């Protein structure tokens, strides 16, 4: 099950972080998501020969790292917006599909003319869509 979904901006600033576990301290997920950025950073930074090959342009980075209880998955858009999902179950679902839905929800949220680019997203409908994503 998805316990946390996060959107991180191109300059590694948090745009949105939502937790789905009940009465859980969001602080923990902030730390986990922030930590996962290191891995994303590493995957993105120099075009190593390995990533140059097939699938080098795949936005879905897949599994990033795991903590004691969670596994973190990542996805990067063309505009370098990072999407992260923290999952707490051991078996991996089709995260690619989840990220596609996540991405389109984000696109809809930032298409709002009142959404300032680079600012955190506080849209209620975006939150609702992520909740739906988490419960699916």
């Amino acid at each position, binding site marked *: 099950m998805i316990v946390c979904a996060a959107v991180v*901006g191109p300059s*590694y*600033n*948090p745009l949105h972080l939502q937790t789905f576990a009940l009465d859980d301290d*969001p*602080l923990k997920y*902030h*730390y*986990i998501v*922030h*930590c*996962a*950025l*290191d891995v994303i*950073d*590493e995957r993105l*930074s120099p075009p190593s020969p390995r990533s140059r090959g097939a699938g080098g342009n795949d936005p879905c980075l897949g599994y990033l790292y795991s903590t*004691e209880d969670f596994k973190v998955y990542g996805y990067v858009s063309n505009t370098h917006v990072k999407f992260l999902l923290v999952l707490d179950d051991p078996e991996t679902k089709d995260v690619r599909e989840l990220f596609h839905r996540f991405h389109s929800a984000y696109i809809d949220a930032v298409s709002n003319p009142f959404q300032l680019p680079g600012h955190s997203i506080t849209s209620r409908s975006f939150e609702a869509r992520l909740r739906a994503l988490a419960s699916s």
Partner: protein
Amino acid sequence: MRPPELKNWLRGIYTPVVQVIPTTDAEAICLKNGLTFAETLRPFCNLRNLNVPIRTAGEHAYRLQDFKIRILNAKNIEQHAVEVAEEQLTQIVSQAAEVATDEGWSKEKQIGELLNMRRDPTPWFTKYQSEFLNALTFSDHEAFDHPVACLLVVPSTDPDPVKTFLDLYSTHNVPTLIREGIADPQLLKHYVLLHDMQSDVTLERAEQVFIEMKSTLGAGSCQLVAINSRKEPEGDSEHVRPDLWGDLCDPAWQRAAHLSHLGIDSPEELRMGKNGAQLTEDDLVTLDSLVKDFTIKVMLPYMENRVVSLNQQVTDTRKGLKNQLKSFWGYRKEKPKSGPEGQDALAGGGHYAYNSPESQLRILADLAFLLRDYELALSHYRLLAADYKADKAWKRFAGVQEAMGLTLFMTDGARREMEICFDSAFQSYSRCASPNGVGQSPVDMGMARYSTRSMLFLSSIFRSHGMFRDATLPLMRASYQESPLRAALLLEQSAYCYLHSQPQLLRKFGFHMVLAGQRYNSCHQRWHAIRAYTTVLGVYCSKGWAYIEEHLHFALGRQVSFIGDLAGSVQYLVKLLGACSHQPAALQATYLREFLYVMQCLSEQGRPGGDMDPAAAAAAAAAGAAAVAAALPAEDLPLPEVNLERIHVHFHDHRSYASPSAVQVGEEVWSQVEAPVVPVAQAGPTWMDGNKATKEVTNTCVAGEEIGVDVELCNRLQVQIEVSQVRLLCAHEGRAEGEPISDYVEVQEEAISLKPGESSLLRLRLRPLREGVLRIQAVQWVLCSVAPGCKRFRQDPPEGARPGDRATPPHKRLVFTVVPPLPRVEAKLEGLPSVMFEGEIHRCILELSNVARPALQNIKLSTTSPGLLCGHCPQELKGAPPGCLEVGAQEEVPPESCGSLERAVVRDPYTGEIVPAAPTSVPFDSVFVFPPGTVLEGEAQLRWPVWIRSGAAGLLALNLVVYYEPQGACPGPIKYRVLRMGAQIQVNPSVRAEAQLSPCRGDLQRHLLNVHLQSLHPSQQFRVRQLSCLRSTRQELWQLAPLSSPDTLELAPGEQKPTPPGGACGVPLTPSSQSRLLFHLTKGREGAAAGASGAASSLHLEPAGSGRGGAEDADEEAAAAMVDMDHWAVVQFLRRAKAQHLADQAAKQRSNSLTRRPSIQAAGPSQEERADREQVELVLVWEVGADGSAGVASPGGERALSVAGPARMGVHFMHSNSLNAEAPLRCVLEGPSPHRCAAACWEARAPTLRLRARGL
């Protein structure tokens, strides 16, 4: 640490143990130096440059270049209890905290600083690690630490040394390991005869004893050592020898255990710490050679032999085809003899006696390891691992795996295999540590330490190969089941591994450091927690991760305050207050409480409890305030937020305002109102004046007068906050050094309570007392009576604007030129109604009071409102309206006490000449000059009547400016002052009256006046009281006479004729009704009719049926009730109304001329001319009841708009063109009365005729 260094380090750890058993006397000799015998030998245990050939199982010998042994007292050869060991380790960490703090480790580091860190960030960890490994020695499942040899020490004074030597090695003196049968009791024994040079026994005697000893015990295993050969008293030696022992001494508690075992009380020398005071250089050489000879000549050959013989034994039983087949078929020797099955067997790995094959194998392998024959060791470890696995002796299995891992590293074996070894060691140890399953409590701490050890080895090996990223995982795994303190240390190490890895994983470093900080925190290692948190502040802060930042700041704030650094704590806590608006209210309240508590403690620091004398208390309070200010500069307090954009300055320069509503009226309106009275202003600097304009622009204010500054305070939290002592901070440039600012400026303090999310505008006041330049610099406050705050105002003009530019409007300027005291008038209009009826005349009292000391003169009033009129003289204040307007109410007033009205003139601002009035200018005499010589002394009052007549229904805005000048010479830049007053009155509709004049049928001199009345008010009853006809422009006076009896009044259908209330006069006009009044208007005959006065002829109207109708019956009383048309106010208002009427007509004319063809316009005299020619001006006076009873309620009982209170009176002006002007031709038929009708027809058709004539 590179791999060779790491190998060296490991060799240093795994060394053979030599046990020392001294007699009590022998130990006493050594204690003269403050050392035990074992300690005395310890500096010489590290042997270098040996080049000793060793030949074990292999064909070829190899050479040892260096070797190290451990010399220990028998009592100390046992594992310390877990609690004791942990206590020791905790102390190391605690001591490191102090060192770390002194060296500034706990400073906040920037990312760059972290990345380029050269020195080891955790120097204490090395020591901790050694101590940790040390604490795990002498375990029962390994043979590394089993004693290999034993030194028996007997003094030369002993009467029978040989017997003593033989007695010395008894069960009483052997270590626990041997006593329990775990270690082999058959040790190499070496006999040392200790000779004390300071004793009575001579060396010769000792040598004699030694020879005797050698013969009995064997020459090779005996040695004579002479020590304490220093003869001269202590301190005479030329050079001071460096302390060789230092760190090598046993901890005090181990020493104490050893000495008490020997029955020696801890002597003085031990405590003095002067190690080796009695030892000369020769003694040291002797000791060195003792150790060296013993090691090389005795111990190493013994070990060699032991390995060879054990190897032979193993080869016989385990190797070869026969033995392998045996083990293949599962044939093994019997199970461990005393090993109980079940839980204990699993946890402890069973009990294997020293002579069991497994133990022998282990001893063999470990000896080979100690002798650095790693290949041999490895092959035996492999054998052993299989055995233990088959026995399910997990602890021993894990120990073997661990040793295998180390051996593989030492031989640079396969890395993967080594990893697997350590991994399985970790897992097996963990399994023993948690009998209920890994990760389940309870965890056996003693056991968990071994698993941690294996992971530490693995991590160190990875690190030595530069594989920092791989090194983190073992540390993390170990940390999961460890005690908080060790977990913290491990996490910190793994954090630094991330930092050193390529590429640098800064965020992971931060995360693990925070985890370490939390662990440190939970085991009360505050310094370390603070260090961990501050190190990562640079990783997280100001990157938008608000939650994390907040967590760090709060944790730091608390920890730093716990260790007593309140000032440092405040620095962190204050950052929370400004940035926690996304948190729930409860958390915000916690933050605020914590912050206030620390601030409170800070301000009370150094204040002793109990009673104090006031001076000391004041001093303590001042010290507390200074401490607070040093910890937190007031500017840094983010609560409440001050909105610098919304600052508004209220002050009086030459302008002042009577009410806040007057401020709202725009400056352009006021400048128009005051233009007629204000002297021509000097033109300001122009662009040609050059740089003069760059001079600072200041506001001007008057000493002693209040300045108000509106400041918006905003509370962003969801918690209510109290803000007290809000005041303005200002500087007075005229102030001399040392004089208190309170002599110059009087500042008022305010207090406010801000609700969650509230922003509130607060008016802060100050009063300059002396002249000079006053600068308002900042606003100060105290939050919750603890934390002082301050916000500086922007003194510079905004970006891009030149200084002195208009970009800073006066209400934003915070610099004032204070001028000497000037008179200041405050005014109010007394009796100003809020609601009036259309056309109503009302008298108010203008009360001017000079609130300052200086006197003022030359008072003028100016207004642009036609409805506002200043009274002629103060006598008009007599009597109550409307009675004061009646004939005879006025007294004769000497002209000098009357003011005068002036026409406003407009002067050219540059030349000062009067320019022709523009058409938009005020069409009436708008300036009232008070009687010459009117002087208002300081703090005096002046009351003056003011008349108000409401115009059309709607909102009536009255703007009035009082102009005055200070009496006498005025040195300052302010030569005059104006007071601006404004008021708004709701005007309700009242009566509409239209007059129509038609010729009288019978009489040429007489006209018929038809007054059409309509009540527009829905509920108020009006009474038409009087009708007056004014003297025309040609000074003709028309006489009014009622046409018929008052029953001509027509009532609205279905309406009852109202009965006039007793005593009231006038024709009642019920709400929303219409009525018609007919009169005769006769020209000429001066003074013929009653009610005629100088300016008008008037008719008093009486209600129908009262019996007093008509002017003929008017008696004295009625005449007195007439409204005086000569009254100043009436006259002026009439004049204004007429001017307004003319202006309206002219405007209409103009708009008509735009649409009409010019040919027709040229045809006859213009409308304007004809209007001038002759007009009948009529005045209708109505009245509203004296109180509620007079104003008759509407049928619905609605009284919303009806007026209660004193009687009110209104005046309407009507204009009607005179018939004289209308008809150029007039035929009058004289005849008897039946023909009047025909004559009327003639008259009526006359206009038609005229028009037709025109048409031709």
